[in-house]
């Protein structure tokens, strides 16, 4: 039950995009079209799960035994960059169809703060390995859900007339805020 709760909170109530506002750059810029947003979301989910799991192993099997926790940031960033690179090569080679739909986003994700954020949260909250996998996967799915929803909402923006001076990113930020209220509304359920 605890595991299910962890998954639920990471997807909905503690949504990485809407309650921590991490990974905002792609969230605002790549959410104009639903299919593109979904591609980005899938890529983030994949990279998040893989990097957080790898970083958990490195943290617990290498850094802690060696007493080198202070190298965490450096090592985590390098691991993320490497995994993204490898993932890109492998997907390009063996899954050309997938590569076409979201391969382009992989290099962008290297510098996405949500990815590093998840790795750091899992250390702060001292999750175990299974918990880390669930938590990172859930956060990825949450981010995917948020960006796809945003894509759907923004598609309907053509029917309304938001303040012109607000610009595209401005109205997106406001929508994100209202969405966040909605997501946090689920807190009672998990409570």
């Amino acid at each position: 039950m605890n595991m299910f709760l962890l998954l639920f909170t990471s997807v909905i109530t503690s949504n990485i995009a809407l309650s921590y506002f991490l990974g905002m750059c792609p969230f605002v810029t790549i959410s104009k079209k639903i299919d593109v947003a979904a591609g980005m979301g899938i890529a983030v989910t994949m990279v998040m799960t893989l990097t957080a799991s790898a970083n958990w192993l490195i943290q617990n099997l290498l850094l802690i035994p060696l007493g080198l926790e202070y190298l965490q940031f450096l090592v985590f960033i390098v691991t993320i960059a490497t995994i993204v690179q490898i993932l890109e090569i492998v997907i390009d080679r063996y899954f050309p169809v997938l590569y076409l739909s979201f391969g382009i986003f992989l290099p962008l994700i290297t510098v996405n703060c949500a990815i590093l954020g998840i790795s750091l949260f899992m250390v702060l909250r001292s999750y175990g390995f299974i918990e880390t996998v669930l938590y990172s996967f859930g956060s990825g799915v949450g981010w995917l859900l948020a960006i796809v929803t945003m894509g759907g909402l923004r598609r309907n923006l053509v029917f309304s007339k938001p303040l012109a001076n607000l610009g595209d990113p401005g109205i997106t930020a406001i929508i994100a805020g209202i969405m966040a209220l909605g997501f946090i509304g689920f807190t009672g359920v998990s409570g």
Partner: protein
Amino acid sequence: MILKALIFSNSFALIIALLLIFMDRVINNYGPCTLTINDDKEVQARGGTTLLRNLFESKYFIPSACGGKGTCGYCKLIVTEGGGAVLPTEELMLSTVEKKAGYRLTCQLKVKNDMKLHIPEEYLNIQEYEGRIVVSDPVTLDIRRVGIALSGEDEISYKPGQYVQIKIPGSGESDYRAYSMSSCPDEKKQIEINVKLIPDGIGSGYIHSLSVGDELDFSGPYGDFYLREDSHRDIICVAGGVGLAPIKSILLHWDRQNLNRTLWLFYGARSTEDLYDHEIFAELDKKETGLKYFPALSEPDEDWTGKIGFIHSVMEQVLSQDINGEAYLCGPPIMIDAVTSVLVSKGVSEERIWYDKF
């Protein structure tokens, strides 16, 4: 403690690097592939590398100004087989019509299997040349006139207005930078370029550092900015600063061939110090060759007697309405845009305006 951290981070980096090299060699290696060009020539290609780089390695020179970043769109070619679907990185540079015709951005497209493609005739004319610098004169504070003689019996044939790509040697893979030729195409053994020194520019810095006798490599000719000789309209040339180079080539060709067309030359610069080759044009203007020369300075000295202001406002005053002309513009984007709208308002249709923005 520090030693432990050093050992750890170094070995960590080493393992990561080895892992990536391994992945690149093994998984990113698609083995040798065959490219069939224009249905008659076959060349071997390295799978896993972009089509553009493979073509360069087989001595097919495809125009490319951005260095393979997918932003200039010059390197598009028709790929008839083996290209796969259009990548998102190509989308921006290809129109719907081009996509239907099978055009691909060769700097983004990786060779993964055998391919069939079409290279236009004019690109096949592009060759690699070895040259030696024979002239390197400063003509303004930051512009140098550089003459390059071709080695041996080599000759280059080009149209007035086209450009070459100078090879900039670097530590890794070589870079190329484009420069318009300012010489007359009749001269086939030697070309001339005008190079403005850009702070921290790798191309201009390199060329300015060379002196007479030094060798450099280049390829060319490239570009569809050249004088159209199949018409009898007036030629309206507009140059801003170092954008004079291709315009001068057009003018020299026009003078040498005695083309029976009026040539309007509008030449804009900041001050007298930035104006070069001014005397040559003033001389030609006096001789009633058909050249109408209008230099203009935006920040003139006190003894300047010519036009004052930006070049598009001078054109606004000088050109008559509904002039039967075609225009060749070379200069910074802001000048090109302003001049284009003046020309359109004077009745020159947009398909008769060619330009080189830099």
